């Protein structure tokens, strides 16, 4: 096997298996931070060995076994030889503390553990809850989730968020220390904490998807790989907590949003606004999957939550033949419900945009000015770009120019800046001061 092919095989296996491996190791050792460390050591060892000797027949078992051996080494170094150590050592035939009995074939034992369906789901779920624990900062939750649940390397995470690899590594190291310091156990949280903790998991998955679907920086509008990862995490979550309507709501939202990707970017990578999108380019299979997920969310007796509502808004667009055919009044009502359930400046601004489509720019401008009053948008390009657009439609070119110029200054995405510059250039000549 060539060196690059070997490395590619390691990366593929890791992407598929890391969650399961880290989860199983965390359960063995009762120590999430240690589990993550030894899993990384196993990965490093695979990167050396597999390109040379080929991919093992049971790659996940191989990685798990190496990880367990490294965990035992760690216990020995720190003279921790408790019951957990004894069990590990016995299973791996590392003797010394275990009495009698033939040691099991470690690879087969590893495989057996990995394929135990009852355990896997619990491990995965515990892993998600720990990686998204409220003691961690938002950045740390995202980095840790991408690394241990989605199986991305620090390099891949750094590339996705346009930060140096060292920054990602530091975030992960700090996060593991914070979890250890807070004594966070590796477990699915007890029922009384579950709702709140699940909220944090959903938020992290949503943020990962959103950063992929509308990159906040850089020159690509959509980062497909990151959006895909967010979507895959949402799918995994619906499988793990099938009775949680918001998990289905979030999956529906990712499907219905991703369905528009093919039409959202033009030939040269420029953004194409909703009104100008060729709706035939939308991914109709994704729309179908999204609507199926949404109907599962809506079947819940607990009613639709914030993600379900956003998915319902996305559905309004998905089923409309054109911007004119869109049920904008319904979208305004859905934003009203969302503002009630999960108030945020973004919801207010989106509601104002929907209002401009439903009832015209004057009504919307009033709503936008009310949104602007609370100051939350001071550093974002979104409010001036919406306001500029509304002023344009009201024929107030001079004011529109000021808003668009401010939006260009504040916008971090080169593609979006180009669109704003285009609008500015399109202002009627009589409104261009000589």
């Amino acid at each position, binding site marked *: 096997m060539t060196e690059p092919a070997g490395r*590619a*095989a390691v*990366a*593929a*296996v890791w*992407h*598929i298996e890391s969650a399961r491996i880290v989860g199983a190791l965390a359960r063995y050792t009762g120590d999430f931070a240690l589990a993550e460390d030894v899993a990384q050591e196993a990965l490093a060892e695979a990167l050396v060995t597999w390109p040379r000797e080929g991919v093992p027949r049971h*790659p996940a078992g191989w990685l798990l076994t190496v990880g367990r051996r490294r965990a035992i080494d760690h216990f020995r170094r720190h003279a921790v030889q408790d019951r957990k150590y004894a069990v590990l050592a016995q299973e791996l035939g590392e003797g010394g503390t275990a009495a009698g009995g033939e040691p099991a074939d470690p690879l087969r034992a590893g495989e057996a553990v990995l*394929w135990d*369906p009852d355990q*896997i*789901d619990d491990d*995965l779920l515990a892993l998600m809850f720990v990686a998204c624990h409220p003691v961690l900062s938002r950045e740390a939750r995202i980095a840790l989730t991408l690394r241990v649940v989605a199986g991305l390397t620090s390099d891949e995470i750094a590339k996705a968020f346009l930060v140096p690899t060292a920054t990602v590594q530091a975030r992960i190291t700090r996060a593991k220390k914070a979890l250890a310091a807070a004594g966070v156990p590796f477990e699915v949280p007890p029922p009384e904490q579950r709702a709140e903790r699940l909220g944090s998991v959903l938020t992290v998955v949503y943020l990962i998807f959103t950063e992929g679907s509308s990159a906040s920086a850089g020159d690509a509008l959509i980062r497909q*790989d990151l959006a*895909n990862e967010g*979507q*895959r*995490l*949402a*799918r*995994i979550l619906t*499988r793990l907590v099938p009775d949680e309507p918001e998990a289905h709501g979030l999956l529906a939202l990712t499907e219905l949003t991703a369905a528009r990707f*093919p039409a959202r970017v033009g030939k040269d990578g420029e953004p194409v606004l909703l009104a100008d999108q060729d*709706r*035939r*380019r*939308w991914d*109709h*299979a994704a*729309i*179908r*999957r999204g609507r199926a997920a949404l109907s599962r969310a809506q079947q819940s007796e607990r009613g639709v939550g914030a993600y379900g509502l956003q998915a319902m808004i996305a559905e309004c667009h998905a089923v409309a033949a054109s911007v004119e055919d869109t049920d904008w009044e319904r979208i305004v009502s859905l934003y009203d419900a969302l503002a009630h359930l999960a108030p945020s400046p973004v919801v207010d601004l989106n509601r104002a945009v929907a209002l401009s489509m439903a009832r015209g720019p004057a009504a919307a401008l009033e709503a936008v000015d009310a949104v602007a009053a609370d100051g939350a948008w001071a550093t974002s390009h979104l409010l001036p770009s919406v306001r500029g657009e509304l002023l344009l439609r009201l024929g107030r070119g001079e004011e529109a120019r000021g808003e668009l110029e401010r939006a260009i200054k504040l916008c971090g995405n080169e593609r979006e800046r180009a669109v704003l510059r285009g609008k500015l250039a399109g202002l009627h000549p009589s409104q261009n001061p000589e």
Partner: protein
Amino acid sequence: MKYMLIFRADDKALESMATTDFAAMIEKVGKMNDELIRAGVLLAAEGLAGPEESVIVDYSAEPPVVTDGPYGETKELFNGFYILNVASMQEAVEWAKRSPITGPGFKTEIRRVTTIDEMPQDNEWIKKERAWREATGQL
């Protein structure tokens, strides 16, 4: 990216399938499906009925010749497929390696599913295809 895993088997392999315990096979395949769903990568999967039900339309001559299924020609038959949404060909290969139906004569071919965007967008038939996909909710 989407990849199709095409399951193939030659006549001998198919014969061996006929003698395997059906319930055990269903369980093995079911577990594999479960793994794919758990990993969040499965988009579609179908299995095909046996060659005894199939019909071949051969275009070697004009008009085409229609015969009953491909008997007595030891060739590989296409028996079913998965469509997976994974990050790379290498990852599709790793999944294929886990197929529970293995042995002499069993193979999986992996092909990338092309997207409509790879076609000339101004061609009228491609435009028609888009409309058709829209109407039928195709993958």
